[in-house]
Each structure stands twice: as structure tokens, then as C-alpha cells.
């Protein structure tokens, strides 16, 4: 294997990690509050505002139903405004983040809905405000589920990041297509796939480990 190839692979891995890490972070920053709001704003709930809930739900669903490759192309003008350019690795973070936000929001919503309503009742009986209930009860109790959800999001974003070559984003997927497919270098394609497999395994293992650490629900799952 030539030193040149090793360098290319390392560079591409780094670019992939960079895109996925930043878009996961931004996706979580956006998705967490939206997910919490979706979980708590139906009629009669903590932050009861049914209309906003419905509108937001529709927006989230709409974003999630656009195929990622179409999303990338469709929002090019928006990407140009946000990133200053519409091509390149940094620009690719924009569509990745926009895909991540509604995805993470739904995962967070589901985890929060699974929290026993008795706990909300107990917190209300202590005189907690809705914000206190969210911060001190719902998020900590949903944390194992949220952790697993974020793991799933990272794995999905690893996959999405392979498509950003379409707008000049680099990374493992782009390398695999350009060399492995267009220049007939099957060994590059093979290595790219191998690295992706290892990355996914790693993310999954670390995510599950963290989720176990924060999950105190069963004695066997004790973190200590």
C-alpha cells in the first residue's frame, strides 16, 4: 500500500469524523429542545400548546421524508448563505445538520415519552415548575434512551456523509466513489468500506457502554 494511499485514507477518515462530529453536535443542540417540546406540548401536557406541537410535528416529518441526496441539492442556496460557500467539507455540514435535527428530535421525543408519568406527577406534587420537571426529571430519566438515540444518529450520519461528495464534500464516501468506482481501484473501495465498518462498530460499542453507565434502572446495569 503506497504512502500516498495511506495519507488519503487518513485524511478522508478525518474529514468524515469532522463532518459527523460537528453535525451531530449541532443536531443535538437543535434536536434536544425540539424533541423535549414535542414530547411535552400535546394537549393537557406540561407545556400544553397543541397547535405549535402539530405544526412542528409536520415540519419534522416533512424534513425527514426528503431523501438526503435531494436535501443536499435542494438547500444549496441556504448552504451558501450559512457556510459562505456551497461546496466543500464544511459546507456539507449544513445539510447533515438539517437532516440530524429532526431525526434526533424524534429520538429524544420517544425517550422522553417513555418516562413513567408517575414521576411527573410526583414532581408536580413537590411544586416543581415545568422547566424543573424537564431538567430534573425528564431528561435525566430519559438519558439512557437519549444516549442510544444519539448513537443511532451518529451511525446514520456516517452513512449520509458518504453522499456529500455530490456537493464537493470530501471524506470516506467521496474517496471510495472517486477512486474505487471512477478510477477502478477496488482496493480503495474495500478499505473505505472496512474503515466505515470499524467506525460504526466503535460508535455503537461506545454508545452502548455509555448508555449502560447512565442506566440505573436494573441492578445488573449498575455503572459502579
Amino acid at each position, binding site marked *: 500500500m503506497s504512502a500516498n494511499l495511506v495519507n488519503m485514507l487518513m485524511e478522508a477518515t478525518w474529514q468524515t469524523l469532522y463532518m459527523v462530529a460537528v453535525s451531530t453536535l449541532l443536531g443535538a443542540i437543535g434536536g434536544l429542545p425540539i424533541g423535549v417540546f414535542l414530547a411535552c406540548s400535546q394537549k393537557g401536557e406540561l407545556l400544553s400548546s397543541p397547535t405549535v406541537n402539530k405544526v412542528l410535528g409536520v415540519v419534522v416529518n416533512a424534513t425527514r421524508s426528503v431523501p438526503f441526496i435531494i436535501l443536499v441539492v435542494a438547500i444549496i442556496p441556504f448552504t451558501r448563505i450559512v457556510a459562505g460557500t456551497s461546496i466543500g467539507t464544511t459546507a456539507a455540514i449544513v445539510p447533515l445538520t438539517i437532516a440530524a435535527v429532526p431525526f434526533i428530535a424524534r429520538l429524544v421525543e420517544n425517550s422522553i415519552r417513555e418516562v413513567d408519568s408517575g414521576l411527573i*406527577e*410526583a414532581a408536580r406534587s*413537590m411544586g*416543581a415548575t415545568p422547566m424543573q420537571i424537564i431538567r*430534573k426529571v425528564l431528561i*435525566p430519566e430519559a438519558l439512557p434512551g437519549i444516549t442510544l438515540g444519539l448513537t443511532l444518529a451518529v451511525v446514520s450520519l456516517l452513512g449520509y456523509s458518504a453522499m456529500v461528495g455530490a456537493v464537493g464534500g470530501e471524506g470516506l464516501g467521496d474517496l471510495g466513489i472517486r477512486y474505487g468506482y471512477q478510477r477502478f481501484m477496488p482496493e480503495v473501495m474495500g478499505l473505505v468500506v472496512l474503515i466505515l465498518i470499524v467506525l460504526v462498530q466503535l460508535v455503537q460499542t461506545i454508545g452502548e457502554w455509555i448508555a449502560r453507565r447512565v442506566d440505573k*434502572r436494573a441492578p445488573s446495569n*449498575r455503572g459502579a
Partner: protein
Amino acid sequence: MQTDTTTGAAITFDAVGKAFPKKGGGSVMALEDISLSVEPGTITGIIGRSGAGKSTLLRMVNGLEKPTSGAVTVAGRDVGAAGAADLREIRREVGMIFQHFNLLSSRTVRENVALPLEISGTPAREIAPRVDDLVERVGLQDFRNRYPAELSGGQKQRVGIARALATQPKVLLSDEATSALDPETTQTVLELLGDINRDLGLTILLITHEMAVVRDIASHVAVIEDGHIVEDGSTYDVFTAPQHPTTQSFLSSVTGVTLPHFIARQLRDTRPEGNAREVMRITFAGENATDPLIAEMSRDLGLQVNILAGAVEEIGPRPFGNLLISVDADGAEQARAFLERNQQRTEVLGYVG
């Protein structure tokens, strides 16, 4: 303690009604015309069947439900009319424990007990010693850094009790707090509640569907059925002289005094021709509960008394007994007169040939 200026009660229900909107229009009356006054420092039991409205009644005390008519007051403050901020303040003075404990699985025992203090904005340095005190009071000092998943049901309820006491409330609400526990654990949890009531002068309002819980701990009881209070008073009075059929049926399960089968089968409502015996229930209560009245009656009236079933119980420090006997039907009226002269209640159950 700030009490209701007009009645001095810790909690009052004044003609309270609660209607829930029904799916597809209309409404269900969960409670109707409830009037009840809970004196400070007492333990009052609310007993009723499933769906009778017990939880709804209790949840109105800390404003988890609002009455649709009438008013509920705690320490003189109208709960239903309280705004959000007032309501939070009232809730800090009213602790609550639950059938399924409702502990945060992500927090240790100490952290769970600390939660209401964090919510009320108590400074961190005051929280730690207060929490340690409470954990010790409920006897869990050796478990203070465990998670709820590592505790037994009884231990979890102790955490629930410590947590409910954290903000030093005047009133404690208990919704079937022992229903998920075995009989022995139930006893220890009830004892703990009794101790707290005595030591802290806490007013306790508890819901149960078991008369045994009422007998063991409550000084007052209200029986609720279909959203109405059908009977209420001191536990002793209600146990010794139940008026309503629902109360009587709840009591039969706890006093456990029933006719042997072979007699129950022969029992008739009217006196048959010829030789017959009258079957009666005697409820011993008050001063004479422990006197040897049956022996006296048998001797003085020359009556042969056949004892069919019986038991003596205690309600608080006071004994009361239930006895099923049969006597010759010809002497039965005399016998009942004798017993009633001695302040015992009798009830004719029927006749056997």
C-alpha cells in the same frame, strides 16, 4: 401552623364536586357533594372500592385536580383558586407518597430525597444535612447511596416517605402507599407513618381499600362509594357501629367473623314452628368490651348460649369484639335486652330449626 380560621381544620372539603369530561361529549361525575373536615394531627383514612373516587379526592388536596364545584382548603388556603405560584407554595406544605413509589431511577436514595429541596431552591449546604437526617429517620442510612432498583418495595416506600417529608410539610397524602407491599412490610411502613404522625404532628390523609390499614393506623375514617361519602366518623365508632352496607361489607373482611358454613346454610329469616334457636351478632365495644358478659347472661337468664364464631380486636388502644351466638328463640328477646342494657349492640341474623 396556620389553620382555617373558621373551623381550625387542616384540610376541608366543602360541598366538593368533580366532573371529568367524557370522550365524545358529556361528563362523568367522579365526586359529588363531598364535605369533610380533617383535624390537624389526625390520621384519616379514606376507604372505598376501585373507581369510587378516592384518588381524585386526594389529588384535590394538593391541586393535582381542581374541583369543578365547591372548595378544598389546606391550612385555610383555597387550593382550587390558587394561582400557579401559590399552588407551588401549597404543594411544598403537602407531601405525597404513591402506590408505585415514583422514585427517580437515575438518582440515589439521598439524591431522591434531595429532589424536593432542590425544587424549592434550598441552598445546597442546607440540603445535605437535612437529607441525611431524613434518610436516618426512615432507617435507610446503610442504603443512602443505592439506586431504587437495588431496594425492596418497603425500602422504596421509606425513600418515598423521606422525600415527602423533605420540605417539612404539615400534611401528608398517601395514595395506596402500602398496596404494593406484603403484609409484614405493610405493618412496618404503617408503623413508620404512625411514628411520623406522633413525632412531627403531621396530619395524614390516606387512601386504602383495606380496612385493616384503617384499623391499624387511622383515628378517623370516611367511606366513599360512587363519588359520595356514605359514612364517616371516628374509626372506633365506624368499626363498632357501621351504618352503611358498604362499610359493613368492608368490615366483614377485616373482622373475619362469619357463620360456619353448616349454620349459614340452614339459616332462615323467619322463626320456624316448634323448637328454634335465634342466631345473633353481638358487637362488644366500649367499657364493657372485656367483661365476661356472656357467662353472666347465661347464669342470670338461665339460657344456654352456643358460641358460633368470634374475635376480639383492637382499634388504637381500645378493644372491640364480634361474637356470633345462638340462643333458644324463646329467650332471645330477653338476651338482647340484657346485652343492650350493658351497652352492647346486637343484630339478629336469622333462625335455625
